[in-house]
Each structure stands twice: as C-alpha cells, then as structure tokens.
C-alpha cells in the first residue's frame, strides 16, 4: 500500500518451525515496542511440530494499526524451501535478507528488491560450539542486522536481554555476541540505516504486548472462575495453559497451599462442556475453551444448558473451517454455529471481543451474564486475537468490583419461602430463581432437558411446555438489555456505514482513516454481543448503505443482521474475507472502492 516510513514498516521472518526463531523474532518486536513504537506481531505457523515453513510478521505503525499491512518491507528469508515465494511477496523497493554462508545455486533476485546476503551460519559457526547454539544464535544475529538497518536503540535490546535471561549470564553473553556480529556485519557491508527506520518515541506508554488467550484467561481468574474443563485443541489450548499458569501463582490457598481452583483435562469436548455445566449448576463459575470442532461436539449439551438454564462460559477461539480445516489459520466462521448451537429452537448469548484487551473485559462480563441470565454464554475470539501478539492498553481493575451472581436464593430467602419453584417467572423478566445444591433443605429441585412446566415438574402437556419455551423468549428480550452495547462511531454527514465484528476492528480503523483522507468518510458500528439491541437496527436505518465486513465465506453476521433486526436487507452489502489470513485494510479499501465506484453504493 503506502511506502514504508519511519516507524511504519513491516518485517517478515520466514523460518522453519522448531528452530527456535520465535524468541529472536519476539525480541525484535519487543525492542521496537520498548522504543515506544506501536507494533503488532502475526504468527503464521503450520499444523505440525517441526520442520515446516513458519512465518512471523511484525508491523510497526505510528498510528498503532494492529492488523497486518498485507505488505512486506523487509523479508528475513531463513527458509530455503520458501525462498521463492518469500522473495515474491516483498514490496517493490523493499529488502530481503538471507543467509549467504554457502553460495546457493539459482539464488533468485528481483530488480526492484534489494537482496542483502549475510553469512549468518558462517559467523555463528565460528563463534559458537554446539549445534543448538549455532542454530539459535543465527536468529539473534539477524536481529542484529535489523537493528543496524533500522537504526534501533541497541541499549533497549540489551536491556531486554537482561530482563529475559536474568541470571543466565551465559545466554546473555552469547546473545550479545550474536547481536553484535549481525549489527557489525550490516554496518560494514550495507548502507545503514535504510530510508525508513525505527525512532524512539513514546507511543506505547501505558500499553502492554499480550495475546488474547492470555487476557481471556486473566479475565477468568479475575471473574472468580474456579472450574475450567477443556480438551486440547488449537488455537484455544494456550487459553487454558495461561489460566493454569496464572492460577499456580495467584490461586493457591494461603494455609494449605492447595488449589483454589480445579482444571480438568476432559476426555473430549462432550465431557468438557458436561463438566462445565455440572460445575455451573453446582454454583461454581465455570468455563471451557475450545475451537470449531469442539463447538460441534458440544451441540447437544449446549441445548441442554439453554433449556435447563444453567450458567457457564464457552470460549470459542475460532480457526479456519469447515471440518478440521486449517487449524493454525484464523477465521470468524462459527458465528452462526454458536448463536444457534443445538437442535430444536435454541439461541445463545454471544460476546465478540475485538482484541486482547476486550477479551479480558468481555471474558469477565461473560461470567456475569451467564449467571444473570442463567444460560451458557459464548465468547467468540479467534486465532488472530488469541494467539498473536497485540499491543493493547494496560488492563485495569476496580477493586470494589462485585460479581453479578444473578438470582440465586440465599438462606434467609429460602427460610421464608413456603415452597421453591425453579422455573416460576416471579419478576416478569423471564429470569427465574435458582438455588445451589447442598445449601438449604428447601432448595432442592429437579433439573432436566425434557419437557418441564413452570414449577419444575416433568410435563408432556402442550401448553405447560409452551409456557416455558415462551418464557425463554422473554428472557431473550431481557438479555438484549444486559449485553454490551455495540461500539459506534457516527456522524450524521455520512451516508455509508460499516458494520463489523471482532478482530476485523483494526483493519477497519485503518480503512476508515485512509478513506476519510480520500474524502470518503464512513460511519462504523461494531457488534459486541448477540442478541443485538436496537442500536444496530437504528444504525442500519440511518444509512443508505452499510458494508458488513467479516471473516467467513458465507456472511454469517450478515445473515444474522438480516434475520435478527427489522432492517432493510437491501441496504446491507456483505464483504467477506476468509482465506485464513487476518484481514488487511488494503483489501477492504479495494472492495469498498470498487463498490462505490461501480455506483452500487450510495
């Protein structure tokens, strides 16, 4: 798209997985961040463990755009296998760094790309003894090359080494040597710095770099979740890893050192959701993280949770479908699968974080909503949010925070009651009172997924049955008032709007900035929850045309906007991006421009 400039560029690393490149790449990114330059890292890794191509892409941008640029200014091409395609993907005028240790036959070149050979292996082999350190230090060395080319603050990198390796002095030393070797080689052999470079600023103050699975896990910890059940599946696995990690330091009982939590590795996803429901029914805040195939397997139990009205939280870290699809690529393809999970008439409350920051807040909110509404609540994240490194604002917490546990009857209330009936809508909001097993002799009731009447008894009676399923619709209306409102950026002047969801957010922010500069300002609404509330419909009504942008093939959000609001579908134009790579602003811009130029849009 636009030419790289100071603090605005993309560096892409092409590696082989299992060669330890990720720590070097992370070091590069963190250094940029510590120099005060907004940055984001996207990891394109294969669905295997070792030996296949893997890419890491780091974008620095003064404005803090966190979606990939879709362009590569510097390619660090460490993988011979993918060299050709890596070279092809560099922007005209860009650079490619490769390991020139051994003369390669057929080294491909491009006239419009500057190819910089660095004998990484050779210089590392000279300095280091073991095979392992030779491999690792090659990576550190190319960071040194970049530091020279981009005029980075070397002191920052060195401090980072100290912070990272702490007491392991030999590692600090080794890395320092490798770094210098790369740096010096570049200084001596190339024109440094390049026309674009990294210049210290303060744009990252008050920010952290973190992935969304970690923040979602933190949300679970802060919301007071105690039971987490799961079955490993990419890309949700690291959510439970993070939860487990935090719990080990933050959730030990002070006296006994025992766990104030229970993490259960289930035998499969059917069991994981059953456990989460069992725990939610028994008064614990519970959750289960999974991904697409897990959602499919949980279908039966999710309908049970809806109908028997049991709180729990399900994280769906979406990946590319259908079926096994591409487990290490991103998509927003389970929007409908979650909203309507299970047979029969079911619909579920869903939350849609846009980035790791929101993943934290919406994760805590999900536990409140699950208990207030007594129903399973979904948090739909995706691989991009969950596993990539985002720069987000520091997370905040108010110490006065009280969890919303919903209508749970306490001892006094039960003492005073004649008889407790589980499914009686006393307040008219569709939400009935529940009790926690074991707490009070009067609290007992029978939970079932078969037909039941408002008193909690089994029924096959037509109107008693209908009474309860109709009340669930009342509850659904109440849900609309409780779920987070959409985020709206609106100006009366603009006739065209965008509606989008989740991790599309950053690409859309960039899109709007660019188009605004070009004189085409667009309003924007981002849904944060299902059910939608009135504001969504109003937004559509306010515009002549609305682009609905999402990352799936079938336009699932578009579908739901049409059916779940009364807005005119003719106004909605669906734009879909679904090749598994996070969405680029430049692609959105192109499509919107095409639409507008072709006169299809207002």
């Amino acid at each position: 798209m636009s030419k790289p400039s100071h603090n605005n560029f993309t560096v892409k690393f092409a590696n082989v997985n299992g060669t330890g490149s990720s720590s070097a790449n992370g070091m590069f990114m963190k250094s940029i961040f510590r120099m005060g330059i907004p940055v984001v890292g996207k990891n394109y890794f294969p669905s295997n463990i070792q030996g296949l191509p893997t890419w890491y892409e780091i974008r620095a941008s003064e404005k803090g755009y966190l979606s990939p640029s879709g362009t590569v200014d510097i390619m660090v091409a460490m993988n011979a296998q993918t060299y050709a395609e890596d070279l092809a993907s560099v922007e005209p005028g860009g650079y490619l760094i490769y390991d020139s240790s051994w003369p390669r036959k057929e080294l491909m070149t491009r006239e419009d790309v500057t190819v910089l050979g660095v004998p990484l292996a050779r210089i590392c082999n000279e300095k280091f003894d073991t095979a392992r350190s030779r491999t690792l230090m090659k990576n550190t060395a190319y960071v040194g090359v970049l530091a020279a080319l981009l005029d980075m603050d070397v002191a920052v990198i060195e401090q980072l080494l100290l912070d990272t390796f702490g007491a392991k002095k030999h590692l600090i030393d080794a890395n320092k040597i490798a770094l210098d070797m790369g740096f010096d080689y570049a200084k001596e052999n190339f024109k440094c710095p390049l026309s674009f470079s990294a210049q210290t600023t303060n744009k990252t103050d008050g920010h952290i770099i973190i992935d969304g699975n970690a923040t979602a896990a933190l949300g679970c910890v802060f919301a007071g979740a105690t039971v987490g059940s799961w079955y490993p599946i990419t890309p949700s696995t690291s959510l439970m890893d993070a939860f487990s990690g935090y719990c080990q330091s933050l959730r030990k009982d002070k006296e006994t050192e025992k766990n104030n939590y229970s993490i259960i590795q289930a035998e499969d996803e059917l069991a994981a959701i059953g456990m989460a429901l069992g725990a939610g029914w028994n008064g614990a805040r519970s959750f289960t993280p999974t991904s697409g195939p897990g959602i499919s397997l949980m279908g039966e139990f999710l309908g049970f949770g809806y109908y028997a009205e049991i709180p729990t939280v399900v994280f769906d870290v979406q990946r590319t479908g259908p079926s096994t699809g591409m487990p290490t690529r991103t998509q927003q393809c389970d929007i409908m699968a979650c909203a309507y999970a299970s047979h029969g008439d079911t619909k579920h409350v869903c939350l849609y974080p846009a980035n790791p920051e929101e993943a934290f807040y919406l994760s805590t909110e999900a536990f409140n909503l699950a208990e207030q509404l007594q129903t399973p609540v979904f948090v739909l994240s995706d691989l991009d949010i969950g596993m990539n490194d985002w720069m987000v604002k520091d997370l905040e917490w108010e110490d006065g925070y009280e969890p919303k546990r919903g209508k749970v009857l306490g001892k006094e209330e039960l003492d005073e009651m004649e008889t407790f009936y589980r499914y009686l809508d006393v307040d008219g909001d569709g939400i009935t009172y529940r009790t926690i097993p074991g707490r009070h002799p009067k609290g007992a009731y029978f939970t079932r997924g078969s037909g039941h009447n408002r008193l909690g008894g089994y029924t096959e009676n037509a109107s008693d049955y209908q009474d309860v399923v109709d009340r669930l619709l009342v509850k659904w209306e109440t849900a609309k008032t409780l779920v987070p409102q959409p985020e709206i950026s609106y100006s009366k002047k603009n006739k065209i709007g965008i509606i989008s969801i989740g991790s599309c957010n950053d690409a859309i922010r960039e899109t709007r900035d660019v188009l605004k500069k070009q004189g085409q300002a667009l309003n924007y609404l981002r849904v944060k929850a299902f059910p939608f509330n009135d504001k969504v419909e109003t937004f559509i009504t306010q515009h002549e045309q609305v682009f609905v942008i999402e990352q799936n093939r079938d336009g699932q959000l578009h579908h739901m906007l049409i059916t779940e609001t009364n807005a005119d579908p003719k106004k909605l134009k669906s734009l879909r991006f679904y090749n598994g790579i996070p969405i680029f602003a430049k692609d959105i811009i192109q499509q919107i421009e095409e639409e507008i130029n072709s006169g299809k849009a207002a």
Partner: protein
Amino acid sequence: MSYIKKPKIIRENALRNKLGMTLTDYEGVMSTLCAGCGHDSITGAIIQTVFDLNIEPHRLIKLSGIGCSSKTPAYFASQSHGFNSVHGRMPSVATGAHSANSELFCIGVSGDGDTLSIGMGQFTHAIRRNLNMLYVIENNGVYGLTKGQFSASADVGSTAKKGAPNVQIPIDPCQVAISIGATFVARSFSGDKDQLVPLLKAGLMHRGFAMLDVISPCVTFNDHEGSTKSYLSTRESKREALYTDYIEPFSEIEVDYDQGSSIEVDLHEGGKVILRKAEKEFSPLNKSDSIRIIREAADEGEMLTGLLYIDENTPDFTEMENTVKKPLNEIPFGDLCPGSKTLTSLQKNYK
C-alpha cells in the same frame, strides 16, 4: 420439590433415622415405570440406603442420563438435587458438580445402554479419575425406553422378544471397570435387597468411584424365556462370591465373623465393610483374582455377585488434583480475585 408428588402419608409411629426423618421422606415422585420393572426395586434399595445412612437430603445430588433407569432419580429423595442430563453423559456432569463442591454425596444412576454404548467414554474416564461417587448401572440387557433393542450387555445367544438371538459378545461393566483401574467394583441383582443395600451403602461411603452393576430385569422387553437377563435366569445364574455387610460408623453392634475367611475394610467416608468370602483362592483386594473368577464364572454360565474388588487407598479425584477440601463454590470472591495491584504488577511482564 417436584410436580406430581406422591401423597405423603407418614404414620405416627413410623421409623425415624438419626435426623428424625422417615423412609417416606426419602421417597420421590410416583414411578412411571412398568409394574414389576427391576429398576423400581433398586429405587427402593436406594431409599433405604440414604435413610439408613442418615444423609441430609439436600446434601445429596443424584444424577442420571437418559433411559428408563435414568428416570429413577426422580423417584427417590425428592428433597435432594436431581439432574437428569443427556444420554450417556452423566459422568461429566457429575465430575463438574463434584469439582464445584466435593463435600456433597453423589449418586449417579445409569442404564446398560447409557453406560456401555453411548456412555463408554465418560464412564471409563470417570473411573480413571476415581471420582468420588456411587455409580449404579441398572442393567437389563436392553434399551428399555426405546422399546427393546439389544444393549451391549446382552449375552450371546440371549433372544430378543421377537427376532434373532444376540450374536455379539457382551461387555461386562465389572471387567471393564477393573481393567481401567476402578477402586470399587460390585455386582448385584435388583431382586436381592439383602445383598443390594449393604453394597449401596459401602459404595456411597467408599472414597472414589464405586461401580455397582445391578442386574435389573425389564419385564416388558427382556423377561421372557430365552433372555439371560430375566428374573428367572438371573436368579438361577447368580452366585455370590462374597457376603457383604456394611457396618455403620460408631456402631455398637458386635459383628460376629470368622476372622480367617473374612476381610474388613474401613471406608473413607465412614463405616466399614465386612466381606465374608464364599470363594476360595480369591481376594477382592487383588485385581487379577477378581478378573479371573468373574471370567471363570462367566464361562460356566454363572454370574458372580457381591463386592468383587475394593481398594480404599488410591486417592480420589480431588486429592489427586490437589484441590482444597473446602467447596470451591463457597470460596469468597475476595479470595479468588487477585485485585488491581496484582494486575498492575503482573503486566510488567508484558512490557
């Protein structure tokens, strides 16, 4: 609380347990099973069990899957918390419920279809976790509620009410449970309350997963001649490997048993079992023994009953997981939420 309550008429002089409750207090709503169904007898034995053990009803959770058998939690202990889940998936719900509060008593009721077909995965993994619960299989060799298809426990050669005899080898829950590492494995017969009640008690007071396979004839679909799970055939083929007594904690009763041929095991949740061996060369403390005598009996067309294996030493799920004893669902929010200061300092790692 339940909708169609049985009219509860408690006689003045009714027997009361230590909590002052009568047997009637432990009943549930009216059974809708077929007259004569074995499952109803098991319901009766469970009522007796929780009455005798003086269990506060609201401290008991009772869970099930789907099937005629799985309906029965509604028919006992109506003052307890019931959970009729989905087909074959009760163990996971029990696991979650138990994690939230491991101090409650937990009875799971299942059928042979619910456990051995759709439920095999969850069944074996609940055993592996040694989840502290009593798991009762009401085993009739058929799918009762869906009208009489063979289940995975139907014996080879057993005939269906109409149609051909079963040809597939039966799955024996006792052998499977032992092979997975169960810590309490027993078998009984719905028609033998004297044997059943002590086993239910011991199972409930056992620390860990207590698996009780109860042959429970289905009068409507599997009680005819030719069926090996009929009342008649079960009575004939059943052989007791051990006589089991359950002795309550602090019981004054002097039990008179021959030390030589008896084994006494203290139960973790209270009381003890006295096992009087009928079989020679068999110890219910040795798994290989247990499997061998079950198989040998089966080869002779006999069905061994009694407490077939017990191990009171293996830690249960919460112990293995190192979870606090206190119910997780009662820990104050303040002890769970690390608070703003921790959040701030923790984020230094992400700078």
